[in-house]
């Protein structure tokens, strides 16, 4: 009984430790969406309320900011490709969430990097549940509040580059990428994709360089070039 309580407490702590700082950078998303991409406050809020997956949200407004509304196919495709990892998380979280239509629909909405990571780090099924739901809810509420604040601030700010917000956007993406660079293979993919995107920018339509750079991942993924030979069983990713 005692150890179960201790495990629950650890799960709650981990959920808050991960959830609160994550929620805080909704401010930069809100500001970028309104000032960078020219969305209004309500469009920005729909992205955080309905799309609710940070990488895809940043990608959508990032492509719209550089390519304008005419780059929408690339903007939507970039958001979808980045959001595809949530489908994988969903498969992993499916047994944790359990049965019932309403419960699974709500769980689907909260299936993101952070809720999956905190849940996966817990030992007992009960603590895994706590990790998933508490992290998901904390990030959801916090992320939407800070998006709203950022969107209102963004409207007041005006020209982004004078405040360095364009560089802040790049830094925000770097923050999402950094924890994924532990392995040599990931580092090689990152460098190659960055080069491909930059080199294609002057010759392709806005938005397309990002999608072509994604092909780098397909090549490395299919061939496992520079990858470890050991099976992935039991390996945290």
């Amino acid at each position, binding site marked *: 009984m005692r150890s179960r309580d201790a495990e629950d407490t650890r799960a709650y702590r981990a959920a808050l430790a991960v959830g609160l700082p994550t929620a805080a950078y909704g401010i930069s998303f809100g500001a970028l969406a309104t000032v960078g991409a020219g969305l209004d406050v309500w*469009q920005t809020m729909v992205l955080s309320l309905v799309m609710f997956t940070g990488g895809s949200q940043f990608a959508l407004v990032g492509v719209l900011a550089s390519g304008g509304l005419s780059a929408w196919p690339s903007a*939507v495709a970039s958001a*979808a490709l980045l959001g595809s990892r949530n489908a994988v998380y969903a*498969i992993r979280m499916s047994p944790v969430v359990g049965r019932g239509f309403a419960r*699974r629909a709500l769980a689907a909405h909260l299936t993101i990097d952070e809720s999956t990571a905190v849940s996966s780090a817990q030992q007992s099924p009960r603590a895994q549940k706590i990790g998933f739901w508490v992290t998901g809810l904390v990030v959801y509420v916090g992320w939407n509040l800070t998006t709203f604040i950022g969107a209102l601030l963004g409207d007041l700010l005006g020209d982004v580059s004078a405040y*360095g917000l364009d*560089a802040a956007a790049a830094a925000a993406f770097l923050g999402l990428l950094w924890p994924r660079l532990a392995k040599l293979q990931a580092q090689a*993919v990152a460098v190659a*994709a960055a080069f491909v995107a930059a080199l294609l920018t002057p010759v392709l339509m806005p938005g397309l360089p990002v999608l072509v750079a994604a092909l780098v*991942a397909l090549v490395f993924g299919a061939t496992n070039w520079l990858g470890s030979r050991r099976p992935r069983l039991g390996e945290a990713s």
Partner: protein
Amino acid sequence: MTAWHVVLLASIVCFGLKVLGYLVPARIIERPAPARTVDLLTVALLAALISLQTFAHGQQLQLDARLPAVLVAAILFALRVPFIVVIVAAAVVAAGLRALS
């Protein structure tokens, strides 16, 4: 396409992907190649976006205050400085360099 269409379409697609995961049998993704590819796809997309946010100006490449700001951010992330502090630092570096030039 208006901005509203784009916002709603992309939101529905991303939510749909999450739902899809709960409908798929687990064994599909447990094979190593698809799992590895999805992980690497995230890495490639983020790296490509960073590259464009740092170097692209419309359809041209341009070296300006963004590059030093991103390098500072990389150093701070390597030192495990909290996310929000790094973002502010990057903005300050870029804004500072622009104010000086």
